[in-house]
């Protein structure tokens, strides 16, 4: 009898040795005389348990983790191939409390299927959303997305349906769907996990968007730092084309749609939508002044839907289950689910998809189990390198758009990075300015010069030079950047700086006393 074993090929799992584990399993099974079928999946998102091995048994898929290559011989000897008992045996992963308490809609299939096996995708509801969109037609599909309350998961949280409506209303002619896969925010990896773990969901979302607004061509702008996602997406696009989901007649309909995958080249700013469009057109990634909006005049001057990977991969969920079912998740103006990414100094980091409303404290302690170092968590950055640093007193804030906005923070792309009490918040504030200086496209002065001067002034504070004057200078620079930058990079880089100065003032003043 052949035993089926799953070992992830997700980059995060590979970074923790999944390839060596897989090879060792093949070798160990061979010596044990058991025939195995090695299957590769995405990650279930429990990164502290990667490499997570699953064995198909009568009682379902039995997980073991973390399984390093050196654990394999002993595990096989003790009956891993039969789902036998062992200290690393976790049972079915769906029953694991960390996983069971989640509400996985967008990530429903990630980790469960072979990402490149179209039949796996179809068996778990794949392309049902597309078939409904084909029945509904463009305007009704746009309306469905509008009704669902889905907002852009890339960071800006703009209502997706409104964006689509704007494109739909433009004069007839060429239109584009541009998928923003330039996931550059530190602490985020949900786009990567989706592209590596369920690439057809991204493709399906793009096709639906195309049908909705009358676009026949889509581009994916993928960051070069994700070579694994690049390979998976490339193969998935080819498979979807071969199966007739992409091409002149999508699913045999009169709708044409095809996708081209393009690589970025290591510029954070290209995650900003207009900069991304410039880059797709083969130019320097300098941002464009709005208006016109990309929905009116975007890629190659044509009306363009620019959506993030998670947003697009959520569209099939909305269409397949209906707008009302999706809107039932979440609270207030944050509807549906959010794939949170818990990272940095936490014991149990990974991907947690839940309806909006979980508090930061629940995320950090119930899921994260506190810090990895065992020391108190002192600061948390929410929403990437342009997000605010939150102190412990703000950990009860619900993770939803308006609640975070009310305390001068932002949810962004859903990345949460924890720091223990060894963190130097002055160093983090300075880093935020340095990062802005490195990544600034240079188009507007507040960002280009403000970030350089900000880093200098914070450096002077660190050296105890004119602390008070430099402190005021940083505040003034931040004010200018906030008010006068052309895009979110310069316009939000002050968030981590000002929040660090406000909530962790002691880190900025101690140098002045010569301590």
């Amino acid at each position, binding site marked *: 009898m052949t035993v089926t074993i799953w070992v992830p090929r997700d980059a995060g799992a590979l970074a923790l040795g999944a390839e060596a584990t897989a090879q060792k399993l093949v070798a160990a099974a061979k010596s044990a005389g058991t025939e195995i079928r090695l299957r590769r999946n995405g990650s279930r998102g429990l*990164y502290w348990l990667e490499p997570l091995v699953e064995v198909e048994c009568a009682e379902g898929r039995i997980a073991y983790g973390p399984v390093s290559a050196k654990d394999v011989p002993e595990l096989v000897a003790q009956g891993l191939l039969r789902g036998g008992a062992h200290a690393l045996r976790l049972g079915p992963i769906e029953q694991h409390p960390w996983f069971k308490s989640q509400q996985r809609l967008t990530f429903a299939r990630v980790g469960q299927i072979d990402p490149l096996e179209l039949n796996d995708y179809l068996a778990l509801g794949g392309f049902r959303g597309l078939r409904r969109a084909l029945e509904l037609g463009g305007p009704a599909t746009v309306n469905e997305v509008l009704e669902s309350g889905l907002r852009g998961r890339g960071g800006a949280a703009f209502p997706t349906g409104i964006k689509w409506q704007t494109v739909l209303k433009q004069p007839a002619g060429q239109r584009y769907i541009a998928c923003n896969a330039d*996931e550059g925010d530190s602490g985020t*990896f949900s786009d990567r996990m989706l592209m590596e773990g369920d690439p057809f969901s991204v493709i399906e979302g793009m096709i639906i968007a195309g049908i909705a607004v009358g676009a026949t061509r889509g581009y994916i702008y993928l960051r070069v730092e994700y070579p694994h996602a690049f390979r998976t997406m490339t193969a998935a696009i080819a498979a979807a084309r071969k199966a007739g989901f992409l091409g002149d007649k999508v699913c045999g309909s009169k709708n044409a749609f095809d996708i081209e995958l393009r690589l*970025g080249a290591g510029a954070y700013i290209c995650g900003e939508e207009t900069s991304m469009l410039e880059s797709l057109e083969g*130019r*320097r990634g300098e941002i464009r002044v709005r208006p016109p909006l990309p929905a009116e005049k975007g890629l190659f001057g044509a009306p363009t839907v620019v959506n993030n990977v998670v947003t697009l991969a959520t569209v099939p969920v909305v269409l397949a289950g209906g707008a009302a079912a999706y809107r039932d998740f979440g609270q207030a103006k944050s509807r549906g689910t959010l794939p949170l*990414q818990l990272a940095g100094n936490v014991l149990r980091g990974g991907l947690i998809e839940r309806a909006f409303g979980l508090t930061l404290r629940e995320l950090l302690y119930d899921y994260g189990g506190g810090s990895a170092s065992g020391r108190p968590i002192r600061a948390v950055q929410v929403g990437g390198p342009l997000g605010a640093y939150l102190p412990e007193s703000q950990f009860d804030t619900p993770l939803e758009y308006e609640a975070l906005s009310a305390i001068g923070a932002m949810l962004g792309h859903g990345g949460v990075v924890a720091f223990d009490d060894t963190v130097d918040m002055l160093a983090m504030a300075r880093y935020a300015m340095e990062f802005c200086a490195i990544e600034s496209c240079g188009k507007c002065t507040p960002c280009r010069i403000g970030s350089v001067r900000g880093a200098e002034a914070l450096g002077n504070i660190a050296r105890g030079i004119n602390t008070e004057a430099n402190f005021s200078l940083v505040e003034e620079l931040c004010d200018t950047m906030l008010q006068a930058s052309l895009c979110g990079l310069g316009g939000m880089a002050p968030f981590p700086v000002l929040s660090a100065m406000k909530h962790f003032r002691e880190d900025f003043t101690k140098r002045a006393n010569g301590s």
Partner: protein
Amino acid sequence: MKSAAAAKPITQAQKDEVLAIVARHKDRPGPLLEILHDVQRAFGYVHAEAVPLIAGALNLSRAEVHGVVTFYHFFNSAPPGRRVLRLCRAEACQSMNGRALEQHAMKKLGVGFGETTADGGVTLEAVYCLGLCACSPAAMIDEEVHGRVTTERLDELLAAGGARK
């Protein structure tokens, strides 16, 4: 200067290859980044003498092409080392001692970010997020990813001389 070894003049065969790459992409919309990626895949970097060739074939100015090459951190203007070590400098990695790892790598290799060891073995590059933030600190050697990298682990990886796991 990215490399200890200065770029050699471009050969006729290399010129032909650059032009063949351009010809392959020329009729696609907005092809310049795609062309530069292919040139870098073929040669490891974008040779200064490739810039006017590309510009001429695309009917762009040299300044436009040069501007694109230098805008993007990923494009090299000089030959990189035999292996490229990319260390993540972003916040999640910093929260797990990434800064100490950076210092260790620089000391160990005797180079700063964007520089190549004297023997041409390793180029050290900074990267701002590899999407491996739940297993920080992270590094990438060529296209091979590594998580929870300690200083000892980094030493092992460098000593392994690029041997595949």
